[in-house]
């Protein structure tokens, strides 16, 4: 599965050291600032939905069906007279929860698999684990996620598991290849000579030195996870109605495309801005 990588113009920036300098350099690039502002804004909307949203997400008002955007309803209302803006704000929760949760799960699961496979390099367990990871990579990611959510049953938690499965092979591969270079280094040998057990060597000594590329991969994957989550929700396999999710808001209002385009493009813009912001931050962090 490809990670969301925004195309970049090829500016190079000065190498530096020290946390303060790194932070200053990070904020020196305008696109990084844009990314941070968008990400913080979206996180605020998601966490503070209850206080920020002007209406309850499922408060129907049939006398105001499909109202045009106005002062009272900035993005208009849907067929049931529900405030679109409030539904988008509440929808932030499920979208962010699912994508961050799925990437975290893939990060942990994939890293453990990569650690084990790399540490017992060329063993049967390495062979089995990595063959399975390869086979998952062959399956078209969204198709696998759709099939998994289907057999697990539609719902947010299952969508998170499905997305985690399609993202984990990347983590396993990155971590494994890093473990292969670390496992023969003197400090690992020393730990082994000192009589540390496999578990202690793996998690205490090997893990800290291989985790960094996996973290970089995670920040870049959150954007793709939002897209996959929205696509699952679009097919009705994500968070179940009446709870609002961006993808399902789009698909359930598809018949109003000509009549009330804000029903479609409101949540679409929310998806685009959150993917854009989070991916910019991920790329900025990776560029450090």
């Amino acid at each position, binding site marked *: *599965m*490809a990670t*969301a*990588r*925004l*195309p970049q*113009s*090829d500016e190079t920036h000065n190498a530096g050291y020290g946390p303060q300098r790194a932070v200053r350099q990070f904020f020196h690039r305008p696109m990084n600032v844009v990314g941070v502002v968008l990400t913080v804004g979206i996180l605020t909307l998601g966490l503070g939905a209850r206080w920020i949203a002007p209406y309850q997400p499922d408060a129907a008002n049939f006398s105001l069906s499909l109202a045009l955007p106005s002062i009272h309803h900035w993005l208009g209302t849907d067929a049931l007279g529900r405030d679109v803006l409030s539904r988008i704000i509440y929808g932030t929760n499920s979208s962010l929860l699912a994508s961050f949760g799925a990437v975290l799960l893939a990060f942990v699961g994939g890293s453990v698999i990569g650690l084990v496979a790399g540490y017992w390099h060329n063993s049967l367990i390495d062979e089995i684990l990595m*063959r*399975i990871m*390869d*086979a*998952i*990579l*062959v*399956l*078209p*990611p*969204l*198709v*696998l996620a*759709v*099939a*998994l959510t*289907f*057999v*697990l*049953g539609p719902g947010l938690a299952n969508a998170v598991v499905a997305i985690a499965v399609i993202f984990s092979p990347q983590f396993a591969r990155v971590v494994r290849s890093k473990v292969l270079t670390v496992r023969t280094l003197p400090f690992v040998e020393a730990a082994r000579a000192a009589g540390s057990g496999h578990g202690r060597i793996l998690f205490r000594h090997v893990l800290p030195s291989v985790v960094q590329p996996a973290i970089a991969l995670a920040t870049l994957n959150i*954007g793709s996870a939002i*897209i996959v989550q*929205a*696509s699952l929700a*679009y*097919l009705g*396999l994500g968070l179940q109605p009446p709870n609002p999710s961006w*993808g399902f808001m*789009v*698909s359930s209002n*598809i018949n109003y*495309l*000509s009549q009330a*385009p804000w029903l*479609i*493009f409101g949540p*679409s813009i929310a*998806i*685009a*801005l959150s*993917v*854009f912001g989070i*991916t910019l931050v991920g790329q900025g962090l990776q560029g450090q």
Partner: protein
Amino acid sequence: MVQYLVRRILLSIPTALLVATIVFSLVHLVPGNPAVVILGVQASPQDVRTLDQQLHLNLPLWRQYIDWLGQLMQGNLGSSMIFKEPVTALLVQSLPRTVELSLVALVLAGAIGIPIGVLAGYRPHSIWDRLSLGLSTMGVVLPGFVIALLFIYLFTYKLHWLAIAGIAHTGTAVWVNPLAYSVPGLTLAIGLAGPLMRVLRGEVMAVASSDYTRTMRMMGISERRVLWKWVFKNALIPAITFLGTQLGLLMGGVVIIENIFSIPGMGNLIVTGIFNKDYPVVQGAVLAMAFMVIVVNLLVDAMYAVIDPRISYR
């Protein structure tokens, strides 16, 4: 090279087998009885038992697996529980639509991505470079269904270029009604063209600054000829290989796009199969898509071996 190709083909057999195993375990290792999921929780134990027998769920798992694999080898994927037709027959009907849609998407992606990508690489920071940056950003941040709806809105309601009836899909082949494939193809092409442009841009930048291009210029060959005859041709191979590797992503897009435009292809088969809880159909269609990806990867590798004689294959 023949040896390389044979080895490559043999190597993809275990992958295919493993993919088949994963697709099998998708349905069978997941908690809960598929029969209960299909019939609903209120179903009587009798009905569940009947369906269990019908789906051979009463046999031990290893038996089910061996039987399923044996049937698969003979090209039998079971039959649809809704349409009462063999899954293979449904796949044979829907495969051409998906292949046609994918080809339209690939051709359009090439038509958009190749010229813009080459110009962007040849003249960095020009208007073409900016255009490629904009288009590929759009492809990254917008899910396929948003791009599709944006195009429908733009082309039918705002510009009135197309009538909704004109792009409505009636299950015909691409040469019968090419218009029905235009917007869905374009939607999928945007997602592919973006990364393609960026790959080409990088390749062209590398080739354009190479020694032999400089020699060409020194020999007085015109800029245009240098660009299209040497730079472009050398950048094309990695670009085509890249498109081949994106097939998995394309298949994911196909599932959503076929659903939006009601194109009766394999993606639609999966989605309707899911809503009908038609396990054999979903299983068969997912497997067929995965096999398609394996075969195309094989073809891309083979093509690469034929086109590029520089690389020696162990």
